[in-house]
């Protein structure tokens, strides 16, 4: 796209819902920033003190469109996240780091002139997506607990988020899966009732093991591919297509099983940022992916209960 067009198209829009009105780069950028602010405000913090801080920073940006084009607003948000991570460094979730990086990336794009804004925003989104996926893949490949398949087997056997699905697609019963959860609880908390087991045998089966094997290597494949695609310094149509396809598939499939709204919505916003200059349909698909994560966050538990009841 011509840089003079970008210069005029990405300055702050005038209306609250300008992002819904047109398909211009300005409207798309506005939508991306707005959805990011909503994501950060709703799911950015687990602690009341930082939740208030995030609300005070994000809410004005949501209400006043011009404010969300201030790089200092985003620096403030990134600083708040960084503070939250520093005081809770040993147990801050990884998606809090991603939110910090993304806020800082947006700030960087707003610091530069409007002619380069979209390029800087897309580069930051590509870098964050690519590097986080690449590091996730490296971690998995160097972890024997992961490559042996043990990680996914334990997850499928003992995590309550999977028991409905596992009872449906494997030969284990819902009762056996709940018993597994009770055994893990006994191992970890039994000492409070003077029960101190050093080991516990779980109900498992060959079907669960096969599934764990598939999940183990599918995850490495999809994360590794995404990492490479987002880091390849190419803007060819094929790379652009594959990049977005891999991220969209990831957003639509992963967050149905494990709804982590903070991470899912941030990924969708970064996806949007890579499609502002081209890829109208991809941009819309990321918006749907964002709503999909929100839907499963709200409706996931009732649906899981319905499945279990049947």
């Amino acid at each position, binding site marked *: 796209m011509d840089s003079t067009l970008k210069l005029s198209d990405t300055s702050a829009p005038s209306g609250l819902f300008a992002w819904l009105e047109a398909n211009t780069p300005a409207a798309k950028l506005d939508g991306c920033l707005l959805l990011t602010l909503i994501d950060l405000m709703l799911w950015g913090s687990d602690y009341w003190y930082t939740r208030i801080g995030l609300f005070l920073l994000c809410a004005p940006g949501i209400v006043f469109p011009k404010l969300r084009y201030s790089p200092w607003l985003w620096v403030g948000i990134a600083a708040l996240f960084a503070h939250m*991570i520093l005081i809770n*460094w*040993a*147990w*801050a*979730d*990884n998606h809090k*780091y991603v939110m910090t*990086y993304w806020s*800082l*990336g947006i700030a*960087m*794009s707003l*610091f*530069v*002139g409007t*002619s*380069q804004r979209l*390029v*800087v925003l897309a*580069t*930051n989104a590509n*870098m*964050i997506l690519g*590097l*986080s*996926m690449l*590091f*996730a893949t*490296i*971690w*998995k490949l160097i*972890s024997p*607990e*992961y490559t*042996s*398949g*043990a*990680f996914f*087997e*334990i*997850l499928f*056997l003992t995590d309550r988020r999977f028991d409905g699905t596992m009872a449906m697609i494997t030969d284990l019963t819902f009762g056996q899966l709940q018993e597994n959860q009770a*055994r*893990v609880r006994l*191992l*970890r*908390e039994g*000492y*409070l009732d*003077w029960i101190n087991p*050093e*080991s*516990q*045998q*779980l*109900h*498992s089966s060959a079907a669960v*093991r096969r599934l764990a094997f598939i999940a183990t290597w599918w*995850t490495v494949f999809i994360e590794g591919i995404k990492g490479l695609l987002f880091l390849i310094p190419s803007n060819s149509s094929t790379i652009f297509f594959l990049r977005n396809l891999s991220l969209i598939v990831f957003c639509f499939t992963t967050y149905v099983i494990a709804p982590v709204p903070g991470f899912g919505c941030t990924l969708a916003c970064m996806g949007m940022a890579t499609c502002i200059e081209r890829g109208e349909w991809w941009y819309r698909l990321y918006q749907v992916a964002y709503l999909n994560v929100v839907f499963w966050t709200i409706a996931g538990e009732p649906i899981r209960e319905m499945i279990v009841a049947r």
Partner: protein
Amino acid sequence: MKRDTGNKPPRPRESDLESSRTGGVSLQFAKYLVAAVLCVVAIAQNIQAHTIGLTSWKGGGFGLFASHDQLRFSKIYLVSPQGLKPLGATNRFRRVLMDFVACPSEPTGNFVARQIRQSAGGDRDTWVVVAAFDIDYDIPTSTLSCNVLATGDSRNP
């Protein structure tokens, strides 16, 4: 044709032009600062996980879902002349306990034990011991077992 021998003003470098177009912030800086920070944090986390026992799930290295460290846990006992009394984690010291479990070491364990001892009250001859555990999984027998990662004692400095 007459040669111009006068001093020409120096041509601005491409990076200067770029900088003036980008509101004072270097374009390269704006593009790659975040990526550089991400790499430094992730590499530091990986090193800490392999040297001081930081859980792969925390610390910003994207090692979540790479190990079953999410199952790490702790046990706390109040020790007195009458014997042992198991204590549950209350909100008051949950945070220091989570620090200990995420990155277990004896000094942190001693610190946590002292904190718990202070809030637990009791006689002068009682003390607190804490231990952090992780879980191993034996695939052929489908058996989970726990291993001590670090312990702490409120009597230790």
